[in-house]
């Protein structure tokens, strides 16, 4: 049986472990004047990461990732609840509707969003015909639009684990709480949420990880006004041609992505078995 693991392991080694070590190796090298890699060992790249400008970018990225994950939780929780408690015959269709966005390419979807809300798009057309005054350019590229793009893209990653947890949830606990006189708010905070903790943290991590490195959505919907870690790294490789610094940034990002789930689980899932 063990032999069956070899192909997967080879894949893992060739396309994940070795590249990771290449990035790690490059992060300790230096950049030549014309942007090629010089094989001179240094750790200055890491020192640069902790400069205030870059820390600010990391902070902005973390904020966006947290905000997106939180909004996904708030929006996804009731959706997952409704799907899990809907009639069995409607459930496959409802789940499919969540997966439909994945059938289109992300860039196309983001451009579509821009057209949808942009100048002369249907949203603005409707508002104009209703006589609601608005600033045409406010709709084009801003932070709210970035958040909207992020949430709509990553919402399914939150809904699926929550849905699975709701499906397993013993709803007689809700009845037991009702029977003991609990109000709906108390049932939500004292019965539902504590029992869904594992799924909530897992969903949060699933959304948080891709969000932190996301660069396409902020670029297209935010107009590249606010630099995020993802954009910063792309720029180091594609525009600034400073591969060693880009590699160092990547390593720090990876470190955050490894530590964040561990931290979340430590804080929220203390004492929860099997997690």
């Amino acid at each position, binding site marked *: 049986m063990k032999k069956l693991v070899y192909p997967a392991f080879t894949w893992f080694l060739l396309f994940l472990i070795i590249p990771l070590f290449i990035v790690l190796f490059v992060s300790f090298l230096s950049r030549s004047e014309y942007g090629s890699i010089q094989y001179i060992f240094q750790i200055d790249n890491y020192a640069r990461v902790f400069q205030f400008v870059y820390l600010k970018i990391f902070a902005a990225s973390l904020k966006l990732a947290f905000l997106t994950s939180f909004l996904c939780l708030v929006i996804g929780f009731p959706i997952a609840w409704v799907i899990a408690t809907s009639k069995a015959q409607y459930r496959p269709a409802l789940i499919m509707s969540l997966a439909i966005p994945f059938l289109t390419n992300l860039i196309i979807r983001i451009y579509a969003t821009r057209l949808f809300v942009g100048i002369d798009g249907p949203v603005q057309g409707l508002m104009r015909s209703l006589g609601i005054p608005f600033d045409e350019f406010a709709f084009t590229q801003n932070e709210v639009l970035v958040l909207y793009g992020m949430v709509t893209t990553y919402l399914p990653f939150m809904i699926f684990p929550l849905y699975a947890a709701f499906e397993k949830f*013993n709803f*007689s*606990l809700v*009845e*037991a*709480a*009702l*029977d*003991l*006189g*609990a*109000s709906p708010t*108390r049932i939500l905070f*004292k*019965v539902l949420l*504590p*029992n869904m*903790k594992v799924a909530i943290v897992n969903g949060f991590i699933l959304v948080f990880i891709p969000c932190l490195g996301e660069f396409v959505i902020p670029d297209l919907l935010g107009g590249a006004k606010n630099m995020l870690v993802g954009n910063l790294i792309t720029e180091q490789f594609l525009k600034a041609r400073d591969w060693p610094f880009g590699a160092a940034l990547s390593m720090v990002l990876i470190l955050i992505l490894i530590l964040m789930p561990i931290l979340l689980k430590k804080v929220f899932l203390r004492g929860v*078995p099997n997690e």
Partner: protein
Amino acid sequence: MVNETVLKLGNIRKQFLSQTALQEINLEIKKGEFFSLLGPSGCGKTTLLRILAGFETATSGTIHLGDKRIDTLTPQERPFNMVFQKYALFPHLSVFENVAFGLKIKKKSQKEIRESVEESLNLVGLSPFSQRYPETLSGGQAQRVALARALVNEPEVLLLDEPLSALDQKMREYMQVELRALQKKLGITFIFVTHDQEEAMIMSDRIGVMNHGVLEEVNTPEELYENPKSLFTAQFVGQMCELKGKIVDRTAQHATIELTQQHRIKGKLLREPDSPNALIYIRPENIQISAHIPNPSDPNTKNFNILKGQVTQKIFRGDQSEICVDIDNKLSMRVMVDSGLKDIQIYQSVFLSFDPEETLVFGT
């Protein structure tokens, strides 16, 4: 037991789309009684309990608690508590916190909560387990926590939805006795839903037998067993020996039935016949079996129905054995005898005698 009515159900009906789950249920529950709703699965007993708890709304009908109409109240507002079939203990809370859940909602002081919780855990014998979590408890312990969690709120009526069905045989028997003793000690009205007739018999003051959404009969366990008023009760409660025959003669309360050309028996007529056909029920333990024809002058068997037959099968069932007797190759009867009686052989001719007063006749 006080003879005061605590709970009154008036014409409760429940319709699920095109399906009628409950038909015109009228029922009065007395204060401090142990009342069981007994019936096969799907008979509507759990639906009725859930309507009482407020988890389902009746399509029509009223529920009164004392003089107060309560069917319009939410589950939170009803002074009832429920013990669920699969316990429904909060897995993220300790035993103590589970029991304290209802008291915290009522904004009781820390001290009061601690005292009440300890008292009710003591009552069910689980005080040493107060810091444990539900998943570390056995089924019996979990069920007792569920009981403590409900009782700590001092409900006017405790609703129990097949609470013992998930326990193993030994534990179930133990809990039946314990539950009954607890109910008598506390004097709280219990409404207990079960499909297990033995369980209902052991514990209840009165039993309501349900079938297909109809409350067939409400009576004490003894009466249900000895004088069932409905055909369903006769068939459902306890072991019965069923015979088919034709009514050939009748008085107001008794009937003579022809089973075969050679055999006629007398019995109590419990339901008016629409046709000459009748169903006859006799408890297997009320039938005496003997190798010789019973002496007609014996006062113990005077006027008894006597049938002659042939033993076809003997089934050992521990303390008793079941004997199948064929009568004129047309009818088959099952009789219970003490396993000590070894002298009955297969293919032997035997005489069966039974009291006409214990022969129940239902016209069909």
